[in-house]
C-alpha cells in the first residue's frame, strides 16, 4: 500500500485532530473535571439535582505540600451558590494538576431559605438579605465531654460551661453576610491547650468537644466531637431596626477544621 505523504500544513491539521482525540480521552478518563467556577457550578447542578445555580461566593485557596518525592500544590475552590427558589449549597472542589475532586475531605451543605457554614476563620450566612444593611451573629459553644465504653457502645455525655461569641457581620452582596470569628491573636489548634480565657470560637470548637474511650487502658487519646452549635443571627435595616432573626446551626468541624 502506498504511503500517503502529507505536507506540513496537512501534518499540522492531522496533529491537531490527534490532540483533540487524545484530549477527549484524557478528559473522559479523569471524569470530566471542571477547571472553572462555571464548570464547577454545572457539575454541582447535576450532582445535587439543583437547577440554575448562581454563585454567591467563590474562594480559591492554594495549598503547597511535599509528598516526600514531589512538591505538590492543591487548589481548593470553596463555592457557595443558590438556585432561583432560594436553595443554598456550599461545597468545595480540590484540583491537583489535572485532577479535580468534589467534596474532598468536607461534606457539602444544602439549605432551603438560608444556609450557615464556615471555613478558614469566617462564618458565612447566606439568604435573601437584600433589605438588610447589617447583621450580628451569636454562636454558643458548650463544653461537651463524652465518655464512650467501647465494649457496649454506651455513651455518657457531660455538658459544662457555655460561652456565647458575638460577631459583627460584613455584607457581601444581596445574599451573604460574613462574620470573622478568628481572633487577631488566634493561637492555632493542635499545638497544646489554649487557656479558656484566650479561647476564640475556633479554639472552643476544637478543644471544648472531646470524646474519651474509658475501657481501653492503652488508648490515652481523645476524639474531637462533631456538634451542631446554635447560631442566632439578627438582621438590621438601614434605620437600625431589627428586620428579622434566624436560628441556624454550624458544625464544630466547619469552624475548626483545616485541610
Amino acid at each position, binding site marked *: 500500500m502506498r504511503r500517503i505523504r502529507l505536507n*506540513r*500544513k496537512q*501534518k*499540522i491539521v492531522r*496533529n*491537531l485532530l*490527534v*490532540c483533540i482525540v*487524545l*484530549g477527549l*480521552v*484524557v478528559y*473522559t*478518563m*479523569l*471524569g*470530566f473535571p471542571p477547571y472553572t467556577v462555571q464548570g464547577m457550578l*454545572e*457539575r454541582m*447542578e*447535576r*450532582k*445535587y*439535582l*439543583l*437547577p*440554575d445555580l448562581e454563585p454567591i461566593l467563590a474562594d480559591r485557596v492554594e495549598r503547597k505540600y511535599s509528598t516526600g518525592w514531589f512538591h505538590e500544590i492543591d487548589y481548593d475552590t470553596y463555592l457557595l451558590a443558590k*438556585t432561583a*427558589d432560594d*436553595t443554598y449549597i456550599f461545597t468545595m472542589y480540590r484540583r491537583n494538576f*489535572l*485532577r479535580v475532586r*468534589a467534596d474532598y475531605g468536607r461534606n457539602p451543605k*444544602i*439549605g*432551603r431559605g438560608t444556609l450557615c457554614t464556615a471555613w478558614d476563620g469566617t462564618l458565612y450566612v447566606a439568604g435573601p438579605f437584600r433589605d438588610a444593611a447589617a447583621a450580628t451573629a451569636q454562636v454558643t459553644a458548650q463544653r461537651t465531654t*463524652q465518655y464512650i465504653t467501647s465494649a457496649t457502645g454506651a*455513651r455518657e*455525655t457531660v455538658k459544662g460551661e457555655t460561652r456565647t461569641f458575638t460577631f459583627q457581620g460584613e455584607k457581601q452582596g444581596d445574599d451573604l453576610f460574613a462574620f470573622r470569628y478568628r481572633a487577631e491573636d488566634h493561637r492555632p489548634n493542635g499545638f497544646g491547650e489554649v487557656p479558656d480565657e484566650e479561647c476564640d470560637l475556633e479554639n472552643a470548637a476544637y478543644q471544648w468537644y472531646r470524646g474519651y474511650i474509658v475501657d481501653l487502658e492503652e488508648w490515652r487519646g481523645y476524639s474531637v466531637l462533631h456538634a*451542631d452549635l446554635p447560631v442566632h443571627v439578627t438582621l438590621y435595616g438601614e434605620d437600625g431596626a431589627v428586620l428579622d432573626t434566624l436560628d441556624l446551626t454550624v458544625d464544630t468541624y466547619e469552624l475548626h477544621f483545616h485541610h
Partner: protein
Amino acid sequence: MKKNFGIFKGKNKTSAPRENQAWRNWCEAVLAQVRFQPDHPAIRQELMAHLEDSCADLERLGYDRDLAEQRALGAMGSASLVGSAMDRAHHPLWGWLWQATRILVLALAAAAVVTAFVVEVMPEMVRQTVSELQWEAPPEAAERVELKHATVYAAPGEVWKEDGHVKAEILLWVRQRDPLAAGSWPPTSWFTYRDSQGELSAYRRQAEDDAMPESRYWECKWAGPGGWTRFRETLELTLDAPPEWVEISYPADGEWTLRVDWGSEA
C-alpha cells in the same frame, strides 16, 4: 534524456558523501535564506543527496569526477533562488506550529498513559461502562419527576415483618441527561422521606439523644453499581405499621415531591 544502463539508481543510494567545499558553500548559501533553523539539517541532507545523485548520473555517462561535481552544482541553479523557494516551503510559522503540535501530541499521549496506568482510572471506567449497559429501566408504573439535568424515578418495593417491625423497600432510579457528573452518586441521602405520621429519620445517631433510632427510619440497603449516567438504589424503611405511601421531597422542604404508593395491600 538520462540513461539508466540497467543499474539501480535511487536517492541516497550513491557512494558515500564526498567532501566538496563548493557544494558545502552552496548549501550554506541556500540555508542562509531559510529562516526555520530546525529544518536546516534535513534541507542540507536533501540538497547533498540531490548533488550526489546528479554527480553519480554524470559519472555513469563518462564524466570524470571533478567535472561531474561542477556540472551537478551548476545544474542546481542559483543558491539565492533555491534558498528563497526553500524558505517559502519551510516557512517559520508553519514550522513552529508543526513543532508545537508534535510536542502537544506527545504531552497528551503521555498524559493519557499516566492517567490510565498511574491514576488507575481504567477499572472504574470499565465498571461504569458495564453498569451503564446493564442498567435496568424502571417499571412503567414508577413515579417520576423530570428535572433539568436528570429524571428521578421511585417505586414501591417489598413489605415484610422483621423483629417486631415492618420493613418496606423504596426503589430509586436516577437517569442523568449527560455524563458530566459521572462517578458522583445522586443525593438520595439528602432527600426527605415522609409518611402519614411525619418525617422518617436517617439511620444514624440522632442529635436529641445521641442514640440510633429504633423505628421510623430509613437506610440505604443497596446502591449501584452506578454507570456514566444511570444509577439505582434501594432504600429500606423500618416502620411500626405497614406503609400506605411515602413522599420523597428534595431539597429539604421540597422543590419537588415524588409519592410512592403501596395502596391498602401493604
